[in-house]
């Protein structure tokens, strides 16, 4: 059958969903480029971690998630948040520390999360989300909600004790959770060759008796295929899986990174494997989109970004007298 030569994504999803996935990836890219520009202009204090180059991992991993499903995110979480359909204006507002931001200006770039869309938090602690994801899967199982939790974490997080403890508990209790490792080859300056005893992090799945797969994380279709299968398995009550998306962050770890631990050549080589260009190319070659569509997609995204930035800029700051709201239940509006 001709269709078996087609990439998984083209077989699995309607055109509308494919176009939507591409649109989200472009929005993530443009959100982060605009965030970076604001930073350069001194409009933001604090730090930020950009996922430019990793957009296929965020969007591809959320393709079969439903409204009831949950994710846990990381310090590099803007993509995860947008993949689940968060509002750009509220994201920028948080970035600027505004009361209209997702965290009411208390969290900032590192914590932006749309809880209403099932995002249990972007976490400043490496590995912090792993046990929380397992807890979310435990409650889904116990309460019979049918929800699956996708747990995003980086290659660096796989050396925290929390990773190992979490995978073991998810496995012994057969919980509906999918561990998605975004392996961008480095945890800050430390390459996985130096930090991690196994070649592929997915090999660690064997130690916890769950399936593990390593895929090209810059190939939207490959990511979606692996994570969709893992979500289906979780949904069917068969337990957790580990999927490792091999990808690359094209920017430094954070703003203060001088990139001393990697070469320009390496960065340039990975830039050629840009996930957005690749997905667009695939969609064009399978007749889902036409060459000329990119300009329109770009323009559309740019307009959305401008509107969102304007919303954020005109939003009020939180009140200083309310700094200690939300420490306990019953303080502040919700």
């Amino acid at each position, binding site marked *: 059958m001709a269709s078996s030569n087609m990439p998984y994504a083209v077989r699995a999803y309607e055109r509308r969903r494919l176009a939507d996935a591409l649109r989200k990836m472009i929005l993530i890219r443009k959100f982060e480029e605009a965030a970076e520009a604001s930073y350069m202009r001194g409009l*933001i*204090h*604090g*730090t930020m971690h950009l996922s430019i180059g990793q957009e296929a991992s965020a969007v591809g991993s959320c393709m079969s998630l439903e409204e009831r499903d949950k994710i846990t995110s990381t310090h590099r979480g803007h993509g995860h948040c947008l993949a689940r359909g968060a509002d750009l204006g509220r994201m920028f507002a948080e970035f600027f*520390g*505004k009361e209209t931001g997702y*965290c009411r*200006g*208390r*969290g*900032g770039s*590192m*914590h932006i999360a749309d809880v209403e869309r099932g995002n249990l938090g972007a*976490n*400043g*602690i*490496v*590995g*912090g989300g792993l046990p929380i994801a397992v807890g979310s899967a435990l409650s889904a199982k116990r309460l019979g909600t049918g929800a699956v939790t996708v747990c995003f974490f980086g290659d*660096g*997080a796989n*050396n*925290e*004790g929390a990773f190992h403890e979490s995978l073991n508990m998810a496995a012994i209790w057969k919980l509906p959770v999918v561990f998605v490792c975004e392996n961008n080859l480095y*945890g*800050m*300056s*430390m390459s996985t060759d*130096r*930090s*991690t005893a196994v070649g592929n992090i997915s090999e660690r799945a064997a130690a916890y008796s769950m399936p593990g797969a390593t895929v090209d994380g810059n190939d939207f279709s490959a990511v979606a295929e692996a994570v969709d299968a893992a979500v289906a398995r979780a949904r069917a009550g068969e337990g957790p899986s580990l999927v490792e998306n091999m990808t690359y962050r094209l920017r430094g770890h954070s703003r*203060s*990174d*001088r990139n*001393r*631990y990697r070469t320009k050549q390496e960065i340039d080589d990975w830039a050629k494997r840009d996930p957005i260009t690749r997905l667009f190319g695939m969609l064009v070659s399978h007749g889902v989109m036409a060459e000329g569509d990119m300009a329109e997609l770009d323009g559309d995204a740019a307009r959305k970004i401008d509107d969102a930035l304007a919303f954020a800029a005109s939003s009020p*700051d*939180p009140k*200083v007298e309310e*700094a*200690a709201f939300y*420490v306990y239940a019953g303080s502040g509006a919700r």
Partner: protein
Amino acid sequence: MSGRSERVRGKLSYAEAIREALDIAMDRDERVVLMGEDIGVYGGAFQVTGDLFGKYGPERVIDTPISELGGAGVAIGAAMTGLRPVFEFQFSDFAALAMEQIVNQAAKLRYMLGGAVSVPVVMRFPAGSGTGAAAQHSQSIEAWLGHVPGLKVVQPSTPEDAKGLLLSAIEDPDPVMIFEHKLLYKTKGHVPRGHYETPIGEAALRRIGHSLTIVATSIMARKSLSAAEELARQGIHADVIDLRSIRPIDRETVLASVRKTGRLMCVYEGVKTLGIGAEISAMVAESDAFDFLEAPIVRLGGAECPIPYNPELEKSVVPQEPDILEAARNLVQGRI
């Protein structure tokens, strides 16, 4: 080197002073090794280890995986068996991940084994707010560790003390925790050359007055000193004590000052309740210095909430110089 450059040198930053201490210690003692995340080619998240990796290589400047519990524990085990590890936490907040090894092991091993072992480990913790890094990267948790017998806990506020306390810590036979406020790394000051030790457990009386005693820690010592200059212009003269060490605490320096001034104010960045100020206040209340008090004790500490991201909110939850000024004036003018 010319004789002139031998004698005269410019000021060093707090970060440079720490690096100089590490360099001196590594040079004179092969047993000293550095461990931590991104302390090698990256030079440390706050560029404290800088180029020491280039000088001493990967055998002595050891990048650990992102494994705080394990990394701290390895440093402790190595300290028990012949090395002198200096372990850098990337942010003090991540001590939470290593609490088991710090509190249950490092602090207690000597005691539990009846004095048969020593744990000469040093841990360095970049601490505090003011960088826009929000709730999980801005805490001041020194009082948590200050509550644990077996540990020593210091908070240098000047480049000179950052170097001297670190060199003392490396020589110390017990585990020493050093809290370094992130906003201090770029501040500059005079730093003596060569090897010297600033004694752990001795406060520094930074300014002499008679109207009130301000006991402050870390960056709050700097803020208090600067506030004291302004107070002096208004006729209020403060004794400013930079506590430097919170375990052990220099009781005598504090009590002597309070006996003299009759008024006490404590300034610290950690959460106010159950913090360092409570200890200092109780110490005074339990001593003869209590009889000299002419007004209630005042504590200025962090607000009862995590550190927020928004810059105005962030400033509002820790004591700032105007807060210190106002509180000191009120205390001296009997308005509390």
